[in-house]
């Protein structure tokens, strides 16, 4: 008796299915974007996960952004800027036609307030690192503060409603790239203690915003529905609704894209999927270089390590054929990395090729060291298929020159902890270069991201000097020189710059892949050639 009932139910379910795909009610054109994880916050200052950082920029407009290919700064809320005072004084002019969604203009006060939030001792976000060069920032952070982001900060002067003067403690040329942050509306946030901001309701439901979209609906772990803002200063976006849809499994994402149930798939991870996408004429595929490289770092903090001998490190640098990695593992979707300067950056040196593949020379160099047996431990984060393959391939190549490497994949948190603790010889990881070529964060001996313990006085000096050099040409030359010295020391084996791949429905127009922002110029995107529901 039960059987027919169940069969009927299944049948009913299947029948329902047939009628669902066209039951949409949205008015204007819509775009369904795939995401691997749900955003945690919409407050850009407190975004620590990629999804939050991506989505927050739909709701909050940055001061400036960068051209996707040349990385030249492009004003957004900033109309223009001047750099004076020997590279110490930045005068920022805000647009007068940009408004918060409640009708109040975006002012210099908002920017100053946001800078103070970032420099407040209770702020544990990413922005402080970029703004710490402002005169008085360190004092502001260390002083005995009120819980609010108020009071004075030496280097900040609000000249008038739309002009802000920022004075740095010392000249620091990369500072302009630090201005890509979106200001928060001071009139909404100024009564909120900084420690409570990330948990505040406005971080989940941005009631007052400046970006091209507003939050319409959010279903936990399912999707974020953003709707075009009527008040956006660059005009109402062409796409009415954006559904930022969470699908944690990349394969399911691909299936949904191919089935037409998704429109844009950013962060495509498997190069093997490329042919499938390229042969589909309903899809368009976009690629861009990324501002990040993968490399194998050597732990130089470890005492009495065989890696203290530079020749061992150089030998390992020559052991691996990076072109082969790019061709066979990335299937050409990337570029060989010779050093920390990205092909996108102005400082990039196309003539600098670093180490070539030369196992013979590597063996010879290794023999010179007189080391009998070189045994090393390589750690990396598990779950990243490409890195797993790279790790295995590298250990094979190392074995060919007589270095035995044990490969240890680790769960992410355990990996990070081991990385900080220094209990490893080699580590396979990715470093972000940032927009500005300054690589002090990772490779200056005092850089907070210098986890490997690399230290070279001359490299330090060059990086510091570059920071103070105002002529663009000279500054880039200094980075190139620093890169040369750095690579000679072989603190790691630079492997490749992966490309970012985006697949979108052919109906999506004006999409431009950007190495840093998914929703770059989203207000210009349009959906054409597809019936609107």
């Amino acid at each position, binding site marked *: 008796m*039960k*059987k027919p009932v169940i069969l009927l139910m*299944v049948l*009913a*379910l*299947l029948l*329902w*299915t047939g*009628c*669902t795909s066209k*039951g*949409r*009610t*949205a008015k204007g054109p*819509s775009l*369904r974007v795939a995401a691997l994880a749900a955003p*945690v916050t919409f407050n850009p200052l407190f975004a*620590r996960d990629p999804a939050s950082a991506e989505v927050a920029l739909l709701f909050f407009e940055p001061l400036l952004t960068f051209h996707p290919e040349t990385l030249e700064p492009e004003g957004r809320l900033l109309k223009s800027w001047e750099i004076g005072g020997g590279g110490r004084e930045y005068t920022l002019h805000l647009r007068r036609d940009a408004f918060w969604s409640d009708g109040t203009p975006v002012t210099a006060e908002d920017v100053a307030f946001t800078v103070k939030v970032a420099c407040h*001792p*209770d*702020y*544990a*976000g*990413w922005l*402080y*690192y*970029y703004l710490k060069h402002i005169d008085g920032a360190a004092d502001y952070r260390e002083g005995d503060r009120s819980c609010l982001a108020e009071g004075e900060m030496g280097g900040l002067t609000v000249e008038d409603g739309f002009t802000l003067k920022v004075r740095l403690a010392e000249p620091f040329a990369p500072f302009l790239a630090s201005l890509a942050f979106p200001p928060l509306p001071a009139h909404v946030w100024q009564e909120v203690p900084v420690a409570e901001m*990330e*948990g505040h309701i406005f*971080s989940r439901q941005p009631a007052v915003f400046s970006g091209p979209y507003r939050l319409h609906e959010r*279903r*936990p*772990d*399912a*999707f974020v*529905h953003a709707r075009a803002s009527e008040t956006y200063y660059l005009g109402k976006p062409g796409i009415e*609704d954006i*559904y930022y*849809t*969470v*699908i*944690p*499994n990349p*394969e*399911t*994402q691909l*299936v*949904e894209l*191919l*089935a037409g*149930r998704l429109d844009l798939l950013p962060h495509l991870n498997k190069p093997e999927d490329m042919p499938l996408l390229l042969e589909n004429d309903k899809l368009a595929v976009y690629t861009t270089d990324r501002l990040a490289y993968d490399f194998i770092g050597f732990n130089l903090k470890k005492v009495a390590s065989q890696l203290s001998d530079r020749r061992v490190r150089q030998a390992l640098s020559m052991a691996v054929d990076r072109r082969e990695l790019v061709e066979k593992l990335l299937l050409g979707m990337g570029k060989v990395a010779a050093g920390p300067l990205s092909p996108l950056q102005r400082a990039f040196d196309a003539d600098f090729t670093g180490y070539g593949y030369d196992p013979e020379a590597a063996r010879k160099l290794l023999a010179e060291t007189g080391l009998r047996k070189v045994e090393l431990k390589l750690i990396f984060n598990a779950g990243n298929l490409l890195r797993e393959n790279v790790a295995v391939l590298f250990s094979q190549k190392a074995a060919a020159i007589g270095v035995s490497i044990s490969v240890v994949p680790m*769960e992410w*948190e*355990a990996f*990070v*902890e081991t990385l*900080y603790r220094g209990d490893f010889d080699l580590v396979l990881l*990715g*470093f972000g270069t940032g927009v500005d070529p300054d690589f002090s964060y990772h490779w200056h001996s005092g850089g*907070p991201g210098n986890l490997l313990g690399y230290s070279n006085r001359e490299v330090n000096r060059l990086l510091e000097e570059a920071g103070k050099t105002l002529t663009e040409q000279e500054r880039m030359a200094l980075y190139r020189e620093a890169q040369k010295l750095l690579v000679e020391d072989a603190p790691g084996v630079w492997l490749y710059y992966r490309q970012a791949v985006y697949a979108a429905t052919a109906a999506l127009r004006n999409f431009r892949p950007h190495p840093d922002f998914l929703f770059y110029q989203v207000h210009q995107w349009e959906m054409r050639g597809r019936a609107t529901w």
Partner: protein
Amino acid sequence: MVRLVAGRLAQTLLVLAGVTVVTFFMMHYAPGQPLQNNPELRLDPTAVERWLALRGLDKPVPAQYAAWLGRLLCGDMGVSLVYNRPVPELLRERIPATLLLTVTAFVFSFGLAVFLGTKAAARPGSLLDTVINAVSLGGVSLPGFWLCMLAVMVFSHRLNLLPGAGMATPGSGGMADVAAHLVLPVSVLSLSGFAHYVRYVRVTVMEVMSQDYVRTARAKGLRKNAILRRHVLPNAALPLVTVAALSLPFLFTGAAMVEYVFAWPGMGRFIITSTLARDYPVIMAANLLVAVLVALANLAADLVYMLLDPRLRVEHRYAGRR
């Protein structure tokens, strides 16, 4: 009876306390911390320390446990360290989605298992029996992940019949839409559930059928269906109730694998992401929820036993007097 129940309750509370201690300490001694510590985020180490201190995470673990327990006893499950919202709020948002998935699958798989398992047991060795055996063996041994991917591959990709991701089409919704999204995950979950349950049902029913009273019933000329319904099933119900009761807690924790592949916004995925993010209050709440439900389900199964089987009641009465 009252003493027995009280005794079981006390035992349950002890087990629960034990579970919280073990989970809490294991979780805190595992590497990692709740504030994303990725060096690429360029967070200021002093600010990170301050962040942890503001949330009491710099104190010794036993002190943290005491604080957590104290708050729990006042009914406060804490605030998520990732979402900055009260934990019950987060659970409430996700439990309905999970229940929709798991209860539907449970009803399908258990109902089908009872129905087909009884049939198979009534005629061991028949074609139906062989097919069911094969299906259940397959269902138990095939990896869940593979089954999920296969379902997506065939029904969402090749045939393009059913959506492979999410609980509803964003921006549309509606009952029919949700039902369509339910089909694949429920089918996969049901298959493995069915495979699991049908073996119990078959064995239990076969055992009961070999009893003397069944032979008597048959001898007095009762029809096969009447025997099954009146004599076999009521007697076979007992072990089946246990199996069903013990599955109940997991209806709330969802099916992480299925939720991951089909992008179902439920508890399973939430528990996994929270664990990976070291969101201590959420991990504790989820574990406690499971522990409480398991304990309650066991207790309930015991009580139902006593209601269903008078023999147990008598035995316990004697046991109580001794």
